[in-house]
């Protein structure tokens, strides 16, 4: 289950302490989002509870936010550090799951509390790898080299390189790969993606994770369904290329492109394994971490595939 805490800036230390047990728990994925960024919350995810810190917010604004949660079908709970709301029942009448005051946050919240909320709301626990998401504020603007952040990773590899080389020669092949790479870079740039590593016919793109959704999934789908057109229109020499894409969400230390040689990341390792060793097929493969952040309609475009290295994998249904 995902727990997202929408905090007021000055309350962050208190809330981090209060949720420390939950953060360390392997049963939950937790993320903190600044209240100024909360407008970006989109997907109606039935596996997420949003804790909204209402300290110092006007009543009208709180009611608006509660209405929005209900409209989007989000589970939500309230944090009120100043005990400013007298009619607490109003929140529960409007589907709130929990209400936390300052006194209740002196000690870290227990896992048991979260489990009873899940039981109350009928949320079934999913076996998934829990993460402590480290969200960068303001996307790339908030990313500082040398620090660890949560990224959505997109691995892309051109297949049948040997065959292509036979047909067009190594020099032309390099030109073809270069033109393809440039096209993918331009496409993914629109989703705030950057090419982080590129070796031969394999690339790794990273997107600062916003804690709520994976916008890059639509570009990845387009890359798959438009493969024929992309091969002919956006790469040189009229040869069709096959490629596979793998996506994952995880934490890594960030260093600028070209200075990534010393980074040791389990998450990147495992993504390269998924991209290169999972199957020989082309297509789009995503881990359960990505899948859990897709909206319900998009989830229907994917189907369960066999697990890999302890992770459930989903594959795009169409080609």
């Amino acid at each position, binding site marked *: 289950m995902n727990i997202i805490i929408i905090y007021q800036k000055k309350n962050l230390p208190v809330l981090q302490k209060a949720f420390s047990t939950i953060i360390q728990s392997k049963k939950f994925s937790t993320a903190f989002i600044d209240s100024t960024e909360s407008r970006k919350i989109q997907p109606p995810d039935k596996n997420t509870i949003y804790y909204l810190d209402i300290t110092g917010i006007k009543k009208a604004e709180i009611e608006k936010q509660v209405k929005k949660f209900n409209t989007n079908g989000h589970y939500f709970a309230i944090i009120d550090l100043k005990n400013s709301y007298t009619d607490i029942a109003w929140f529960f009448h409007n589907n709130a799951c929990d209400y936390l005051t300052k006194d209740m946050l002196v000690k870290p919240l227990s896992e048991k509390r979260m489990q009873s909320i899940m039981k109350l709301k009928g949320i079934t626990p999913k076996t998934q790898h829990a993460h402590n998401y480290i969200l960068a504020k303001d996307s790339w603007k908030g990313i500082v080299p040398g620090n660890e952040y949560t990224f959505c990773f997109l691995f892309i590899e051109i297949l049948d390189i040997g065959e292509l080389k036979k047909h067009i020669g190594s020099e032309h092949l390099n030109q073809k790969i270069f033109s393809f790479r440039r096209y993918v870079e331009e496409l993914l740039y629109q989703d705030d993606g950057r090419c982080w590593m590129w070796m031969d016919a394999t690339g790794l793109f990273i997107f600062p994770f916003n804690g709520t959704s994976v916008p890059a999934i*639509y570009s990845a*789908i*387009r890359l798959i*369904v*438009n493969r*024929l*057109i992309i*091969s*002919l*229109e956006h790469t040189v020499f*009229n040869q*069709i290329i096959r490629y596979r894409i793998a996506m994952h969400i995880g934490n890594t230390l960030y260093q600028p492109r070209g200075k990534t040689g010393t980074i040791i990341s389990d998450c990147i390792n495992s993504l390269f394994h998924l991209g290169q060793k999972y199957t020989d*097929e082309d*297509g789009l493969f995503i881990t359960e971490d990505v899948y859990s952040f897709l909206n319900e*309609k*998009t989830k*229907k*475009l994917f*189907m369960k595939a066999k697990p890999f290295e302890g992770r459930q994998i989903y*594959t795009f*249904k*169409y*080609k």
Partner: protein
Amino acid sequence: MKIPYSILSITEKALTKSMDVHTMERIVKSIIPNYNLHKIMGFSESIPIPNKDAAAQILRDFSESRLFFKLVHALMEAQEYGIMGRRYPIAHLHEIVGEIINLGFIYDKNNRIFIENSKTRKTPNWGVLEEDEEYIVTLLRLDIAANTRLVRKYESPLITQTYNNLRSIVTAAVEQRNGRVWNWEGDGCIAAFILGNRNMAAVCSAIEIFHELFLFNYIESQLPEPVNIRVAIDTGYCTYKHSPEELKKTELVSKILELESRHTPLNSITITNSIYASLHAEIANKFTTTRSGNAVYYIYTIQWATP
């Protein structure tokens, strides 16, 4: 469109410096066959016209963009391929072309014409097609299936929003390949392609429209049922008309409307033999052959392979 005086002035210098009056006349006659410089300037045939005066007169007569672009193109040809076996290095040619680009045009090497730069402006005739003149054009006709039923069944704002989204998808796919949507009506549109490999561009646009529509129907659309379309593509000579109503009366447009309505199944693309022949093999393989009387058509029905 009138060409600015500064460009006319450079071109006048270019003509004066690069060739004699006889060559100038030869170039001009390749554009206007009965052009008679002596007659226009009031000189008898036996009197030589000074280079500068001849160039000035030609530029006065070619100051309208349609003719001016043809003149510049003729100068480019004279420099690159020559006239009667002799090449003429044209002074200031780079400057002239640069100024035309600054006006918002680009040179299309495939068709050897100046066309408007789509980043600067987009007009249905690419800034160069002329009323009542014939061009080889590839047309794409898109029809929204069961349009009348959808319009009657659902509320107007919902239909308007859905169709606006479809329109954006179609316009983006067409204009990305330098095509133009010539006419959009309630139940569909006609788009035209004249540049580069126009047949491939039209077919790729159609395929992309289908893919985008699939994602739209699945993920974004608020309509309880998917929007389905039919697409037909054909190529041939078409007399260009500024008025969409007049365009509809042309032979190629009538032909493509019939191809779409009579020979195109739901969610399919139907193309004619001439389009099929110019496709890349991998794209052509997606089409299946079908016959109707003596005519052969090729149909691509969107089918998704599940792994």
